């Protein structure tokens, strides 16, 4: 790749961006506080929060205008995802948005209920398609489940929703076996199916990376506030480099994960074939860093941080569970490695 190509490196947000960001930050702050999050742990889903979110336009925004959406960009969606992650909002927004966008691309979105979010779409976000029964992150609340089955992308429906299984990410996760579906529609096959599904996997990774950025920033902020008021030997522990430098490293992770997510989103929006490795890269980076950062945030708060009641532990478990919902992040790293090796070896051979 020409690393010296003259491109703009402009990460700035427009006024529309910052308005959108502020609106969703306020929304989640108001309607998804830590008590709400805790209360939804049994089901992994807060129905009332979901309905408010849909009423705000969060499900329609990312869909094309041709199906009744608002045509928002992926950059816009990363801003929402970051705010969702910041409060650990118990709603399957990422899965639904990515799934319904996939349906729209496959010309299979003809349900106003899906557009409005009154019917929920789940997707299997693993990079490598599993066979047989598989864990679907939003499976227990979904009316429609999109999976790969051999060369096909299929839409599944179940007479009764799949049963929620307890999981570290507190997601509405369920085992879904395509063989037991009551409805099964082939949406696409072959090359088109593979390409569009990969796009959905990339979008899921991008938005999950953004959610993890918000999650990490918030748990870091809570830990930093704690450190400012906790004293040892007469000084705030925040002034000790053993505490402040790990927190500074987390702040750096937040900035890097955020910048990369937005850059990746811009390329998917504008030049999707140019840097296909960036969205998965944002995910691989944040999947690894989120767990480390959330652990450090607990550590900074010591004995109080490890309490099951502490906000820090709510962030800790989701930092792991939300990333792992997409399958082993290593499979995504392998995907990145192959993309880059193919590109660079082809470029070297062309010289």
């Amino acid at each position, binding site marked *: 790749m020409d*690393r*010296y*190509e*003259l*491109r*703009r*490196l*402009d*990460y*700035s*947000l*427009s006024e529309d*961006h910052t308005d959108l960001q502020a609106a969703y930050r306020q929304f989640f702050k108001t309607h998804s506080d830590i008590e709400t999050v805790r209360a939804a742990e049994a089901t992994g889903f807060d129905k009332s929060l979901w309905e408010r979110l849909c009423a705000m336009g969060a499900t329609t925004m990312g869909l094309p205008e041709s199906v009744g959406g608002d045509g928002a960009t992926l950059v816009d969606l990363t801003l929402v995802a970051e705010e969702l992650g910041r409060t650990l909002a118990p709603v399957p927004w990422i899965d639904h948005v990515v799934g319904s966008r996939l349906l729209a691309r496959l010309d299979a979105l003809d349900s106003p209920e899906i557009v409005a979010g009154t019917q929920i779409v789940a997707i299997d976000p693993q990079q490598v398609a599993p066979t047989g029964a598989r864990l679907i992150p939003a499976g227990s609340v979904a009316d429609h489940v999109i999976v790969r089955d051999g060369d096909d992308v299929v839409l599944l429906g179940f007479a009764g929703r799949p049963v929620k299984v307890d999981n570290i990410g507190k997601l509405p996760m369920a085992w879904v076996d395509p063989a037991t579906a009551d409805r099964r529609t082939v949406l696409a096959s072959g090359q088109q199916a593979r390409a569009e599904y990969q796009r959905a996997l990339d979008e899921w990774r991008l938005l999950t990376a953004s959610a993890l950025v918000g999650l990490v920033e918030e748990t870091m902020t809570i830990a*930093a506030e704690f450190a*400012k008021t906790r004293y040892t030997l007469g000084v*705030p522990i*925040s*002034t000790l*480099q053993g*505490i*402040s*430098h790990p*927190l*500074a*490293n987390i702040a*750096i992770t937040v*900035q*890097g*994960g*955020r*910048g*990369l997510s*937005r*850059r990746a989103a*811009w*390329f998917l929006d504008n*030049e999707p074939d140019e840097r296909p*490795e960036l969205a*998965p*890269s*944002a995910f*691989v*980076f944040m999947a*690894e860093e989120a767990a480390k950062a959330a652990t450090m945030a607990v550590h900074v708060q010591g004995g109080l941080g490890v309490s099951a009641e502490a906000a820090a532990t709510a962030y800790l478990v989701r930092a792991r569970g939300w990333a792992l919902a997409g399958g082993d992040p*290593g499979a995504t*790293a*392998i*995907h*990145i*490695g*192959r993309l*880059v*090796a*193919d*590109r*660079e*070896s*082809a*470029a070297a*051979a062309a010289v």
Partner: protein
Amino acid sequence: MDFSRVELSADDAAFAAEARRFLGELVTEEVIAHDRETGDNFHEGVHLALGAAGYLELEWKPESEGGFSRVRSRIWQLEKRRAEVPWVTWGTTSMIARSVAKFASPEIRDDVMRGVFDGTVRMCLGYTEPEGGSDVATCKTRAVRDGDDWVINGAKMFTTGAHNCQYVFLITNTDPDAPKHKSLTMFLVPLDTRGIEIQGIRTVDGDRTNIVYYSDVRVPDKYRLGEVNGGWTVVREPLDAEHGAVAAADDGLADVAIMMHQAGFMAEAADNVAAVVGTPDAGGHRGIDDTSVAYRLGRNMARIEASMSTPSIFGRVALAQAMRDVAPELMDIAGPAAALPIGADGGLDDRSEYVYRFAPLVGIYGGTLEVFRNMIAQHVLGLGKPNYAAPVGKKAS
């Protein structure tokens, strides 16, 4: 937000083509070989040619004073990196020239600036001391007034490029009893003055820096920059630029963090290693088909791209840290041939081993990673000034 290719006017496109041609011809095999041999990261012939063609002045001056436009400035910067123009001594010269233009006495200012623009005047930084560290305000090198002159005694480390320079931008202590930020005076000391001894030190990345000793060096007052004991003001301006504390314009025509130039070597090495493992060997086997190779390459690519998306002072740490984290893994992926130096028989010339040796320096010079972590902790997160143990020999109150 915008990451698009910049659309150029016909004039700017012609400029870009000319810059690539000119620099490509200027940086010959001989220039590269000279750099490897001396570690100078400076080539006088190249530098004088850049000056003669007017490029030093165009690059240094703002557009309002006849310098490059923003877009040409960015084109020029990227094309210099592509051609691998030696950069260290122009970097220090250009930075110090900001202080010279603002603070030097009229007696010396115009001559110095003329030389900066034609390439005959180069300047290096005399900041760090053998017993000091990253805190430039900790200064034991003394300057004492003697009539119209000053007499300087002391020593400075990391005076990179001194043997190719005409002046050193020297921090001295002129009032040992004053608080440290009110004790400093800056001088632009001619390096051919008696009493100056330059000793070369080679660093592990192959570059050369210097330790410079000052023994009863007599400097006329006209070489003082700024007020006596007002050196902090003079030094802070270029230091802010070095630390990346100057707000970036949002036209996307600049690096988002300092050390991006250095990190470019990491990105290029990673691309090289990716090409190596993506190419079949004599037996038709590609390294990338081994999933452990693909996994590590992908994971490290992700870390590289994240670091290169990290802005300002955060990016300064992220880039150097990524270089340190990624380089050993790139070498592992490339395999044992990555251990061979550039140009070796059967070598890959992928440069991952260079990045491994270079990375420690990138996290030290220009303010260590700890300095920046302190800045982020204190000024961004509001964690307060770091607490240190009481100085040795003093009891904590």
